[in-house]
């Protein structure tokens, strides 16, 4: 059996000034999960090691942690797959304050969920005599998002959260999709307006970490793409993100390529003086270096063809 060093983040904020790593050497038996190994360390070597675990079956979402820099579920991963040069490095999940060793305070994560009002809000005037039913096709639209086990693996590795602790985060936005696309919910537009604000869906960088780390089929990035699509279709356009998408639509449909002079101005808003002033320094720097996009925008050869495709776009929208 191969001996592996588990390099584990240790920190007790009540007693220690700074965090440290502690090495534990464990023989890997074939077929063991990372959680099996952590249990072995805690039960046989060091009972002071703290981490969350419960079901051991990738259902409860307790045992998310960072391994070799990326979040995963300890119970769902074979330890042997994680060894790098004889070492497995384990840290607490990211974007969360550490309470003890691998245990973090998840309150900010839950707070983001509360912000999206994660419960059904049907039309209150409607008083049905029987339960509100959904067809299979209607359920399929929310099926993926309902599979969230709230493990916070996506939250851990989210690039936007690293620079903005007010960002909703991937899990909460995926939860918003679950209600926005629910045929029984009556608050679609209100929800879209609310999460279109600053720190909401348009602040997602599209880095793809969430979908990569998600241990279930939620794939939050795909759900964020869907709520953006819903916002565009619903006409919730009064923000930089939606205006940016409109600018893409307008310029690509006209010339086949993006007009890089128009898109920033359209995105911040034609009458947003402060926003336009913010664009000036980089514009000047680029102009001085002759790096500015051409004043007469470039285009493709057969613009008519692309215009034709775009002009029929309403037919292509999803129902």
């Amino acid at each position, binding site marked *: 059996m191969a001996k592996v060093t588990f390099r584990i983040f240790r920190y007790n904020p009540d007693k220690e000034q700074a965090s440290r790593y502690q090495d534990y050497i464990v023989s890997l038996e074939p077929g063991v999960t990372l959680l099996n190994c952590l249990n072995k360390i805690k039960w046989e070597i060091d009972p002071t090691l703290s981490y969350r675990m419960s079901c051991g079956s990738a259902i409860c979402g307790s045992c998310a942690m960072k391994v070799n820099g*990326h979040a995963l579920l300890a119970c769902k991963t074979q330890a042997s797959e994680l060894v790098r040069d004889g070492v497995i490095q384990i840290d607490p999940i990211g974007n969360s304050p550490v309470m003890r060793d691998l245990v973090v305070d998840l309150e900010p994560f839950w707070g983001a969920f509360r912000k999206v009002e994660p419960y059904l809000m049907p039309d209150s005037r409607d008083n049905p005599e029987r339960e509100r039913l959904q067809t299979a096709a209607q359920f399929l639209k929310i099926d993926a998002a309902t599979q969230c086990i709230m493990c916070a693996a996506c939250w851990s590795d989210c690039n936007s959260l690293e620079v903005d602790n007010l960002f909703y985060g991937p899990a909460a936005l995926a939860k918003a999709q679950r209600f926005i696309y629910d045929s029984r919910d009556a608050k679609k537009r209100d929800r879209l307006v609310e999460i279109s604000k600053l720190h909401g869906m348009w602040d997602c960088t599209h880095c793809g970490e969430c979908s990569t780390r998600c241990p279930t089929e939620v*794939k939050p990035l795909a759900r964020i793409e869907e709520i953006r699509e819903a916002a565009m279709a619903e006409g919730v356009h009064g923000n930089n993100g939606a205006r940016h998408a409109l600018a893409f639509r307008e310029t690509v449909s006209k010339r086949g390529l993006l007009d890089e002079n128009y898109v920033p101005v359209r995105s911040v808003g034609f009458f947003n003086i402060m926003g336009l002033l913010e664009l000036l320094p980089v514009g000047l720097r680029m102009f001085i270096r002759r790096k500015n996009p051409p004043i007469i925008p470039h285009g*493709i050869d057969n613009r008519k*063809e692309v215009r034709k495709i775009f002009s029929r776009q309403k037919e292509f*929208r999803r129902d």
Partner: protein
Amino acid sequence: MKYALYTGCVAKGAGRELLAATYSACGKLGIELVEMTDAACCGAGVINEDNPILGDIINARTFAQAEKMGLPIMNICTTCQGVHRKCQIKLAADPARMEKVNAELKKDTGLEYKGQVKVRHFYEALLEEYGLERLAKAVTRPLTGMKVAAFYGCYAMRPHEYSDLTDPDDPNELERIITTLGATPVKYGERLKCCGFPILMMNKRNALKLTGNAVAGAKNAGATGMVTPCPLCHLNLDAYQPEIDKSLRMPVWHIPQLVAYALGATPEELMLKTHIIRPKEAFALV
């Protein structure tokens, strides 16, 4: 070797130096390029979010054009490459969607996407088709002493199901090219992060924090330059540096620039003067 060159928007606009460097590098390596002057913007994921089927039709049009030319596509932008690959993978996995996209495409253009065209980024073409041994032999100006930090760009790596990298969580493709050119690759914590560009118009403060973290990370790890296969990352990493921290002074190369420079190209050929932070190494020679 011959490719249909998909320029994308930036290489025709704010990143014209990228197009110049691509022609320079490929010319020196004997790679023939036929520019796709009728291929539309890939949508950068934005058009797909607005209207998924429309985004697919526009990209299927590009693929069908290359199929008609009988050539594989070479991208010079990680975002274009990522969007193209995602579109190809999604269409291949969903015959009903493929049929719908082709029906619409045919109606408006008479074209049909057969699902056969290969789509490769410039650096992937070097690694997989040109070969690093051949590249090493072509190097006439080894970049000895340069410490180069690669910045991959999200679309090259994530979500993993759409990535062509061998190990998207710890890629070494760009580092292998850097080594082949005679420079020393520098690894740093931020090399796989987002550059901030996608939210530049939505939340500039956060976008520039991400950009600043990446450049500072490379600098703290000892890099004398950064290299990226994505012109959108390049815009943020280079053009916004003075707004983030004037002391950073980190030159950022496009990958075809770095390759062409090692093959003997002059700074003028690579339009290095258009960079906001000009690479010292290149100008020390002239």
